[in-house]
């Protein structure tokens, strides 16, 4: 059964690239481009894993994470955060909100794929 990954990111070019990469690796990929779509897509698609861009405009990323954690249907879905920030403040926030890992852009695809496998196995 194909595993689905939901990618939440406001950069469509980036989404195009990473979707291709993930599909080549056997995943089914859905996308959401803003914080509003994010939760509704998550509920609709019920992905096995979510890749979330933390630094979406208007502070969307962290808000989405909170909403996902607050919703009984989505709180269980593992989230890997992608961020351009590597400062401690953000790291702490993400850790508090329970992400399974985070990557700083631009990222190494190989490592991301390893991580995804890790997380899905542990699930």
């Amino acid at each position, binding site marked *: 059964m194909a595993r689905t990954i939901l990618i939440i990111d406001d950069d469509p070019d*980036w989404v195009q690239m990473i979707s*291709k990469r993930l599909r080549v690796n056997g995943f089914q990929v859905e996308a959401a481009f803003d914080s509003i779509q994010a939760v509704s897509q998550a509920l609709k698609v019920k992905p096995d894993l979510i890749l979330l861009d933390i630094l979406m405009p208007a502070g969307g990323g962290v808000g989405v994470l909170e909403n996902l954690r607050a919703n009984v249907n989505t709180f269980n879905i593992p989230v890997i955060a992608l961020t*351009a*920030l590597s400062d401690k403040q953000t790291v702490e926030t993400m*850790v508090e909100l329970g992400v*399974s890992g985070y990557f700083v*852009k631009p990222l190494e695809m190989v490592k991301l794929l390893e991580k995804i496998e890790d997380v899905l196995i542990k699930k």
Partner: protein
Amino acid sequence: MDKEMRILIVEDSAVDAELIARELAKGGLAHTSKRVKSKDEFLKALGEFAPDVILCDYKMPSFSAPEALEIVKKSYPETPFIVVSGTIGEDVAIDTIKLGATDYILKDRLGRLVPAVRRALKEARIACDIKQLERELSLAKEEEFRVVFENAVDGILIVDKESKKFYRGNDSICRMLGYSPEEIENLAVMDIHPEKDLPYVIKQFEKQAKGEIHLVEDLPVKRKDGSIFYADINSTTIAIAGKVYLIGFFRDTTKRKQAEDLLRTSEEKYRSLFVSSHDAIMTLEPPLWKFTSGNPATVKMFKVKNEAEFLTYEPWKLSPEYQPDGRSSDAKAKEMIETAMRKGSNFFDWTHKRADGEEFLANVLLSRVEQGEKVFVHATVRDITEQRRLEEELRNADEQKAAVEMKSRFTSMVSHELRSPLGAIKEGINLVLEGLAGDVNDEQKDLLSTAKRNTDRLGRLINNVLDFQKIESGKMGFDIRKNDINEVVQEVNDTMRLLATGKGLDIVVDTDHNIPKIRFDKDRIVQVLTNLVSNAVKYTEKGNITISTKQEDDAVHVIVRDTGIGIKAEDMEKLFQVFEQLDGARDKKKGGTGLGLAISNEIILAHHGKIWAESQVGKGSAFHFTIPMKLKEKKKIGEILVENGKITENDLKEALNKQRQ
């Protein structure tokens, strides 16, 4: 009692007339006044204005007091005539009294004026009353007498001159004193005054009995219940059944006295406030709006010599020619004052100028004040230069804070904005290169590899710039934990080995295994070592690179030695500075950013360590850094809230540390 008193002032000097008018106003006399300068005006005023009292200058160019007095005595003998004069010889003064003047007042003793006027009017009125009563009494009918007696508003007591016993008292006095008419007939003068005042009372009584005086003012009178009131007592004699009695008319002046006392207290209060206030308090009067008073704080604020000097100014004279809004101080001040007069008060900002020329910003409060007939403006001025300065400082501090905030937010946004597109570019190139979008020929591969190399370079540059900015602004947080320096060496070796062997170079690792774990930020030190080793590889064509660690005094000492081209002596000092690459084109090709050593420098400094280099051209270089064994404690990452039971705290921590790129 003082209602609409009409005062005629005969005075040729405008200044003196003004002084008189002011004195009258200050005394709280409700009055209208008219001023005349010549005989003709005087005669006209006597008829039309019909004054209650005349104040007359002794000597005027065309007219004199004696002349005026003569006229008055003839036509209006009841009207009190008070001579107000500058210097007047005593004989002259006595003469005027003999001629029939009621009183005379010296111009430099104007304080006496108001009481004199009051008294004159009172006596005139009472004289009138008495004359009236005498006329009626002289009609000699007891009923008529009784009617008057009983109905008088004033309290009336008829007293035996010798025994001082009361013969009769009217209803009014009974009410005033609280006794019944019968009780009154058993009392005497001594019974109706406070004991302590009796000597004075008796003395005055005897004067009245002898006809020496008629009016005694503000005498304390004691009621049946012991309470005290004050009364003016006017007296005359009366014959009843052949015996001569003294008859006294009592008018309660308590209210007036209270009012006077109150006024005096409030005046005293105002005066003490005026003098001691730290705010500048001053008054201005129409029509010229010159200052008419200024308290010590005012004198200080405007740096004038004293109050007298202050009174020579108008408000706009103590201001710059133009206010900050461009309007002339002259016109604007008058407008502000007029608004205060119209609305009762006006509060506004104003730029003043001290006597020494210094300008300052102030809050001004103008209030309209009515005192009897007089209307003037009361002003409070507060120097807000200090206040404004503090506000300015606060604003600057806030602005600075906001600027720092903005800068750090800028950093975050920039890093995001720069990195995201880079990610897409890199991935796009990778996907094609890996053949996932179709077959790739050699030339395409070559071109795309170049592109990819440059995206990597761009990525490194962005990282370096942001790192450097973070370090410089003190915003880089270090994650200090106990770490093994040799592990760091191992990690860097693993990363760099391929690069080195690709150039035909060896990396030799020489570590001291007895070095204990010490506290440092592992990722950052890895960054430093990577930077040094990568430089070493870059600038070495043959030979090897040695990484060694050893324990020394209280620190761990790391050395990266190479057999490369070395560094020229004159370049040594520029080494750790920003953007100083020693060999332009070659460095760019090698992908350097010019920031690596500067960042390494900052990182080592942040660890309170030292970093330096030794080199010999043609032989090689050695880059050293030390990290002290004891390092200050830094905050750890906070506690983790785990909602999902499947992921444990350790998992997360490990995962996060491993994944951080």
